[in-house]
């Protein structure tokens, strides 16, 4: 049946077009099973004969593996035309032989024989037919062969990581290694075109045109070889021991027991089994069936063989085997034993085995135990330093055919070199090679990205905060711009002089203000001065008070007083010259302090005016003048007396000028009663300033006599009466007795007392000399 690549419908064999869709059917294409070599129609995924996988398994990421594609049955899968394959990559003889070995070992499936296309004719087909016949002739049946093959296949899966949960998980493998990893299922064989180079060399040829010469086959395979075996057989001594056992029957003396051989090998194995066979218990289960019964002392190390050969290779009995515990579980079953100390030189191997023969282990090879687990599987065999030119020698690192060499990171290549420093370079690509894996040159920019072997930098570990325990935490960096700090201009150089002045000024400002007070020496603060003061006071009081009291005690007694009556007579004459109803303007310009003296002066004058019948108009520029006038007039004025208190006149000379200017009528006389020089001057000046002929008489304090004399002499003041003496003189002149006369004796006594004190003081001063104060 031919399945349509478009619609998948089955068509009868030999049809050129699909009966359903009319699509041309591929008539000359078919899929050759990589395992049994049977031709399968296009669209088959598994071989119809051996159920080997026809469609290559490509390594896909885990997430891609989860995707279950629809059944591909009916699709036109990529195929390789047989003709082209033969022309492009003629397999080697050994490869063809090996490829034929497997199908020969696979028992014929009678049930599928009919569906399979007829095997291609060839010499190998003939001897395979004979081999099959021989196998069938023996007791082994087809079912037993399948069972053995399944058992063999089941022993392989441990190589595939995804099938074993304990070893490396697929996700932990790099992508490029997934392709190199062991196949997930041995049933799924990879097509020859998609196999790596080193596998293609050992893969069974699809259609070998030339049969393998018998001489190139090992002895133990010569029995399996076709009848036209080569005339020159390899000497048995040059073969490894384990090959001697499977060599032709005449080689080994001790044949493997037939019961311990696989069924398919029982017919091939030499009839005589070796007497000293390796105990079956020491062999893995999967090897018990194919392993030669005797473990040769000098055998090819299994580790140097490709994986697929390890399955059929005779088990080694390593002297120092790697402990099984150090190997991953999935490798324990297939872990190759350590290479023997003495390997078979390549030259001694047959040609067909030179490619398969393990390379000579370098003297300084890295032991397998030092490699990581995942590399033990893919680690290159310990090969001699010299590169093997055999094209079938597996490369150091196997990559899937789809993977370009340029995609392999260099570090892995370098690592592979480190694992096997003397390992041979990748197989040289022959001109006629099928697969040309050219090592790509890593560009410099990619080379710069290669991870360095240096130890990672030890980054500090956070010890506090939310990120405690984490390493590699970036240290916080202040991103905010720090406001610029204004740089102060450099201080100017300060000279000493300004600095001293500034310091002095600062010191003065900080000190409390102490206004220097002139030392005032209080007069009389000393005891002598106090005594003098008390003495003067007592003398004056005694003189005055005594004089005042004497008339009370001794009436009629008085002191003889000579009064100058001329000033009083002048005043008296002026006042006496007034006639009624004359108006007298009385200017009362003294205060309370001068009242004791001025009242004695004013009383005889006012009484005289009142007696003359003058109308008194009393004015004052002193606030208290009005009070004094009222009090005095209340004492001396009779009820019928006419007087008027004009009110207080402020503003000094201006007020006086305004008063004189505002007078309704010209006063007959202006009587000035004052004890102050200013008032005397103002009244005299303003009176003179009026330009009118005004009569101005004054009753003044005794202290103003020197000040009034010039005006009196100049005629500005017509008459003046001074102090208590003048009042007493006026009273006596006018016959108006009053208090002035009574106090005149006291005044005379006081004058006498003062004169006496001045004289006494002068005498004391003369006698005692000038005092210290006077000397100063």
């Amino acid at each position: 049946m031919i399945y349509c690549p478009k619609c998948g419908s089955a068509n009868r064999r030999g049809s050129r077009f699909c009966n359903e869709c009319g699509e041309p059917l591929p008539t000359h294409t078919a899929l050759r099973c990589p395992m049994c070599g049977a031709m399968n129609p296009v669209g088959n995924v598994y071989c119809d004969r051996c159920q080997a996988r026809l469609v290559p398994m490509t390594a896909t990421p885990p997430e891609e593996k989860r995707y279950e594609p629809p059944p591909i049955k009916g699709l036109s899968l990529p195929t390789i035309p047989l003709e082209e394959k033969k022309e492009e990559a003629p397999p080697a003889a050994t490869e063809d032989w090996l490829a034929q070995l497997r199908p020969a070992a696979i028992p014929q499936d009678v049930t599928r024989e009919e569906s399979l296309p007829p095997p291609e004719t060839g010499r190998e087909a003939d001897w395979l037919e004979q081999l099959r016949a021989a196998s069938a002739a023996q007791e082994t049946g087809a079912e037993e062969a399948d069972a053995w093959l399944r058992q063999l296949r089941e022993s392989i899966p441990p190589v595939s990581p995804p099938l074993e949960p304990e070893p490396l998980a697929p996700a932990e493998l790099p992508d490029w290694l997934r392709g190199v990893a062991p196949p997930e299922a041995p049933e799924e064989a990879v097509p020859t075109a998609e196999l790596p180079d080193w596998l293609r060399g050992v893969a069974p040829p699809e259609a070998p045109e030339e049969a393998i010469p018998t001489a190139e086959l090992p002895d133990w395979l010569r029995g399996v070889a076709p009848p036209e075996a080569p005339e020159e057989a390899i000497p048995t001594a040059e073969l490894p021991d384990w090959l001697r056992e499977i060599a032709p029957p005449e080689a080994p003396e001790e044949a493997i027991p037939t019961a311990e051989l696989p069924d398919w090998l029982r017919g091939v194995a030499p009839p005589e089994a070796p007497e000293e066979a390796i105990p079956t218990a020491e062999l893995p289960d999967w090897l018990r069936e194919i392993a030669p019964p005797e473990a040769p002392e000098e055998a090819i190390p299994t580790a140097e063989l490709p994986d697929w050969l390890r399955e059929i290779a005779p088990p080694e009995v390593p002297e120092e085997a790697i402990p099984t515990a150090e190997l991953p579980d999935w490798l324990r079953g297939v872990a190759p034993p350590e290479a023997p100390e003495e390997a078979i030189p390549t030259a001694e191997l047959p040609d067909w085995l030179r490619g398969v023969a393990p390379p000579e282990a370098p003297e300084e090879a890295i032991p397998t135990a030092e490699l990581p687990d995942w590399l033990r599987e893919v680690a290159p065999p310990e090969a001699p330093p010299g590169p093997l030119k055999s094209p079938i020698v597996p490369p150091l690192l196997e990559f899937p055919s789809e993977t370009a060499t340029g995609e392999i990171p260099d570090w892995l290549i370098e690592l592979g070199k480190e694992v096997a420093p003397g390992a041979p370079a990748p197989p040289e690509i022959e001109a006629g090679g099928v697969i040309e894996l050219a090592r790509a040159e890593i560009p410099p920019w990619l080379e710069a990205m290669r991870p360095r072997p240096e130890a990672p930098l030890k980054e500090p570990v956070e010890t506090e905060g939310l990120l405690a325990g984490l390493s590699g935490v970036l240290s916080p960096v202040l991103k905010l711009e720090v406001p610029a700090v204004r740089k102060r201009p450099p201080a100017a150089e300060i000279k000493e002089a300004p600095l001293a002045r500034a310091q002095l000024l600062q010191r003065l400002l900080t000190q409390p203000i102490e206004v220097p007070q002139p030392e005032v020496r209080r007069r009389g603060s000393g005891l002598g001065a106090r005594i003098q003061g008390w003495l003067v006071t007592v003398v004056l009081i005694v003189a005055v008070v005594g004089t005042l009291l004497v008339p009370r005690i001794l009436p009629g007694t008085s002191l003889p007083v000579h009064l100058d009556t001329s000033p009083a007579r002048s005043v008296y004459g002026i006042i006496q010259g007034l006639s009624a109803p004359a108006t007298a303007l009385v200017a009362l310009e003294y205060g309370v302090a001068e009242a004791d003296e001025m009242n004695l002066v004013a009383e005889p004058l006012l009484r005289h005016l009142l007696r003359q019948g003058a109308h008194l108009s009393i004015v004052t520029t002193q606030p208290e003048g009005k009070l004094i006038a009222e009090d005095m007039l209340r004492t001396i004025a009779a009820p019928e007396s006419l007087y008027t208190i004009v009110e207080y006149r402020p503003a000094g000379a201006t007020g006086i000028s305004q008063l004189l200017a505002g007078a309704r009528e010209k006063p007959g006389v202006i009587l000035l009663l004052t004890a102050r020089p200013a008032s005397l001057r103002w009244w005299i000046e303003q009176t003179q300033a009026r330009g009118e002929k005004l009569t101005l008489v004054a009753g003044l304090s005794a202290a103003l006599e020197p000040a009034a004399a010039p005006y009196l002499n100049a005629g500005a003041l017509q008459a003046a009466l001074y102090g208590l003496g003048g009042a007493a003189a006026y009273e006596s002149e006018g016959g108006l007795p009053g208090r002035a006369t009574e106090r005149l004796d006291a005044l005379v006594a006081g004058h006498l007392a003062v004169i006496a004190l001045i004289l006494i003081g002068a005498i004391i001063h003369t006698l005692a000399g000038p005092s210290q104060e006077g000397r100063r």
Partner: protein
Amino acid sequence: MEIAGLLIGALLTLAIFSYLIGDNSLYRLALYIFIGVLVGYSLGTALHDVIYKMALARILEDPLSGEARATVIPLVLGIMLLFQGFPRYAYIGRYPVAYLLGVGTAVAAGGALVGTLVPQIGATGRAIRTMGPLDGLLVIAGTVLTLLTFTFSARKSQQQELPGARERIAKLFRATGQVFLLFAFGAAFAGALTAALSALIGRAQYLIEAVDRLWVFISSYLAR
């Protein structure tokens, strides 16, 4: 009441006399009472006699009269003077002050010229004729020398001194003038002393009369 006033007066007088033994509280008490009463009385007098009687009374009595209208300007000037108490508006009070100073200076200057200088110069010139030759010459000499004393005594430094004999004459004038001043001040001091004695006599007389009145009052009271 009269006795009470007399008694208070007598006590205040004695308190003032207590200053003879030194500054004391009684003296200060009497002094403060005297000053306080005087200022209070003066203020009352100014308000009553000036502001009310001389300004407001005239305006209120007849606002349209001439006196009332003439009073407005002084009243406004007086109000403007109150702004002197506020530094921010003190400039307002400067106008009435300027007016017062101007008017006062003019009045004083005119009165001094007419009432003092001219009469006294004339009197000095007439001194010989009116007072006699000796008194006249003495007055003239005294007046001139006193003026010269104030003139030359103002020189302090050697450079301002007159050269030669003129300086000696100037010094003589100054000394003679100072003698006249001494006599003048002596006469003034004698007058002041006479005034003080008169005040003392008056106070002593007041105390004696107070005691007499108290005695009479007490006697009359006891006689009742």
